[in-house]
């Protein structure tokens, strides 16, 4: 029965993550395109987009991208071709791995409600907007949280069976190569874990040293990257530390960012950002009705902190989860601090099991809570698939448009000398590589202002805003609409 329920939970998780995967989120961000194209390039040439053979860090938009997300996308590109689904599917897979890990972590946490805790936590994780949203994107967040969660699982297993320490060390070091915040969080996790379970590690000093040695050995490329500046490129770009501010002001900023991520309004209203790729405009990281259970779960771990190592670990996890977000200049935090998602699934599940324990009619209470989460998920699903695309497809969101523009360019390339797309996207060149890797030699980024040549037959993709401020005469060939029916781009010929 438990296995059947777990399978049902996984089916729900898969459905929520793969339904309309190519169209929601509506658009395809340059980071996703970069991951996809580099995977494609490695698959076919063994080199990245800059011609480096099998790099450990991928140069990308001015910094260096950790490699695992790109390498793990290769099989999907090989199977499905270079398209949005192939780039987003690895995240779905890592989302499912995260749910598995959460389930087994709960089995390791020796709670008195051990039987149901894992299933409830898995259900909460499978329906959690925080995980669903990022598991549907081709970013590195999902691989990071999956590796992080599996590392915790293996570390917990190593407490009872020290032979798990070697795989845990390998996973911990590999997590460094998933997403930038891991460089900060993984050492903190290991430090805290060793302190909490010090008896175990002191008792097995030989294994502990072996594990540490493996961890350090596998981290050598990362350590070397510090000397080359690769490791700091992204941090320098987004970090909170500003030379214009005093140390005190910087610290105040960090504390502010940190406390935001623990405040109820963060979970009730979402993030304070205009970037609609993240949790704004009605999209919240957790289902609101699960918040009371989260509060109960948090209270529970604090009440049991003295007698339970598991509670100590969860509190420590809660303590370190916001740090990566806190040291960055501004939101979004949900992506950088995504390791909070599995923790909150476990805490909500703990809150639910405690609620059931102290209320009469346990079966009915359990059913009521499952119904509450199910109904909330239905409401979230409607919002996510029908309303979220309406406000999140423009420049500050998922930058909808390049696929349709380039598809039209490729179809009509024989008729024109130049196919020119306005640069209204972050790193727009990557989209030519992604959507037409060997097929768009005539494609360029620009506008009539800088590339108009009366001697050449040219096709321009521009925004309606551009047309208002630049009164060229156009013959419109195609109009591309955002999901909210507003004009996103016009593909035009300039009339001389």
């Amino acid at each position: 029965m438990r296995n059947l329920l777990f399978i049902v939970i996984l089916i729900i998780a898969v459905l929520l993550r793969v339904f309309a995967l190519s169209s929601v989120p509506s658009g395809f961000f340059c980071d996703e395109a970069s991951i996809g194209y580099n995977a494609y390039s490695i698959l076919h040439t063994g080199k990245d987009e800059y011609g480096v053979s099998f790099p450990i860090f991928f140069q990308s938009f001015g910094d260096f991208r950790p490699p695992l997300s790109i390498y793990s996308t290769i099989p999907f590109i090989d199977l499905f071709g270079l398209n949005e689904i192939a780039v987003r599917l690895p995240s779905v897979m890592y989302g499912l791995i995260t749910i598995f890990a959460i389930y087994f972590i709960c089995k390791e946490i020796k709670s008195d409600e051990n039987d149901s805790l894992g299933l409830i936590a898995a259900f909460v994780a499978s329906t959690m907007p925080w995980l669903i949203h990022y598991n549907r994107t081709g970013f590195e967040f999902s691989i990071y949280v999956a590796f992080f969660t599996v590392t915790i699982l293996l570390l917990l297993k190593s407490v009872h069976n020290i032979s798990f320490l070697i795989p845990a060390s390998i996973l911990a070091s590999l997590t460094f190569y998933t997403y930038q915040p891991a460089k900060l969080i993984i050492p903190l996790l290991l430090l805290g874990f060793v302190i909490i379970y010090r008896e175990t590690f002191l008792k097995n000093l030989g294994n502990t040293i072996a594990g540490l040695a493996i961890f350090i050995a596998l981290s050598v490329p990362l350590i070397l990257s510090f000397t080359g500046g690769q490791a700091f490129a992204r941090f320098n770009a987004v970090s909170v530390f500003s030379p214009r501010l005093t140390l005190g002001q910087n610290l105040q900023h960090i504390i502010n960012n940190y406390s935001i991520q623990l405040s109820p309004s963060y979970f009730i209203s979402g993030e304070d950002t205009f970037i609609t790729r993240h949790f704004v405009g009605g999209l919240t990281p957790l289902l609101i009705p699960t918040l009371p259970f989260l509060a109960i779960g948090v209270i529970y771990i604090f009440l049991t902190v003295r007698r339970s190592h598991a509670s100590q670990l969860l509190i420590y996890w809660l303590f370190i989860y916001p740090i990566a977000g806190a040291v960055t200049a501004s939101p979004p935090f949900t992506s950088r601090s995504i390791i909070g998602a599995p923790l909150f699934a476990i805490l909500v599940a703990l809150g639910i099991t405690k609620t059931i324990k102290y209320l009469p009619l346990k079966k009915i209470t359990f059913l009521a809570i499952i119904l509450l989460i199910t109904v909330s998920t239905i409401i979230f699903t409607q919002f996510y698939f029908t309303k979220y695309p309406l406000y999140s497809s423009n420049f500050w969101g998922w930058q909808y448009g390049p696929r349709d523009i380039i598809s039209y360019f490729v179809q009509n390339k024989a008729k024109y000398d130049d196919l020119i797309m306005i640069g209204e996207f972050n790193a727009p060149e990557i989209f030519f590589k992604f959507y037409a890797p060997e097929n768009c030699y005539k494609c360029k980024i620009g506008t009539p202002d800088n590339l108009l040549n009366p001697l050449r037959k040219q096709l321009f993709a521009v925004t309606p805003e551009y047309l208002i401020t630049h009164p060229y005469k156009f013959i419109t060939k195609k109009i591309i609409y955002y999901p909210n029916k507003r004009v996103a781009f016009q593909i035009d010929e300039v009339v001389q």
Partner: protein
Amino acid sequence: MKKIFFGLFIFAVFLHILFYVSALKTHTLDILFDGGIPGQDFFQIPNAARSFLLGGNLQGFLSDGLRNPYIDCCAANVNVYHPFFTLLIGVPLQYFKPWTSYYIWEGVHVLTTIILIYFIYSRFKENKYLYLGLSLFLLNAFHYYEIRNSQFHFLFNFFSFFLIYESVKKGDSVKGGIFFFLSLLAKPIGLLWIIPLLIYKHFKTIFAGLLLFLAVSVPFYYSDIGKYYFSNFYYVSTTSIPSDNLLNFLWFFPQYHILIENIVKYFMYGTFIFFFYLQLFKKASLFIVFFLWTSFQLLFYNLVFHYHFTILGLLFCLGILLGEFKIKKDELIPMIFLTIPSPFFLYNLGFTSRIGLLFNEATWSLWSDFWLIFLITAVCMRILKEKTINA
């Protein structure tokens, strides 16, 4: 006697089938019933579900204000049902073509009737009034309105029946709670069951039912898409006095408007107090208490429609089989008159105008309310007499 009842049952089965054939196909029996637009009630749910799936609201409006994305051919109502109920039923139905889903829903109605008959048969097969009870259930003429509209009220009846059965038979409070929840989900008037359950200390049933109901309501309450249900519920529950059902009498005596309104109002207060008196001091049985509060709703609730009276068919059946209604003329006669069609159909021959319609409504109210009050009086008199003798 059993053979006569069996013969009656066979007749009832045929007539019940004829209800379906006439309401859905031939319309032969339409002359016996007040008018109505087939599907008017039914389509509100698949409309709302389709609208929800397309990003609109659960009343049936798309985000651009367009109404009825599922069917726009007829006068489908704006959805008023519980959001979860709407989705549970509407989402599967809206995948079919409109009139196909209408007939599928009729199929579900037939299925619930078969389940009820099977359940009653299996539990009461030794009872000498089995076929009489089943006949009163199947012959209930108000089914015709329910079938023609393809209404959802039969689900309320269905779940209420099992709730009453579980409660009266002192069954499983978890099961009872689930049936209470389901009846509430189908129609919020199910809240009425709290009174008998509370008085008879079925606290666990109430707790279970309300907890489940809250679980599926709270997320819709704070979300905009479910607000309509709660504001509608608030509106209906705060404007239900006096009953427009009983006030249909006014059609006959328009000059005594204020007087009749006051009479109805005080009659309602008096009935309310009297029912409480019967429960608290005369210890009327739990089944009778369920019956009295059902009758209270039918008499005084602001928006009582013909099909609401279908629940009486089930209550008569169960009451007779449990020995709660007596096979005596003062109880059997009103039951029979509440089962057969009311005589207002005579006016269908002569009146097709608005006046005719109002007259029908008034006659219907007069007829059904009279016999219901007759039955309540007979039952209450018997209880008072029994309790006095016992005392």
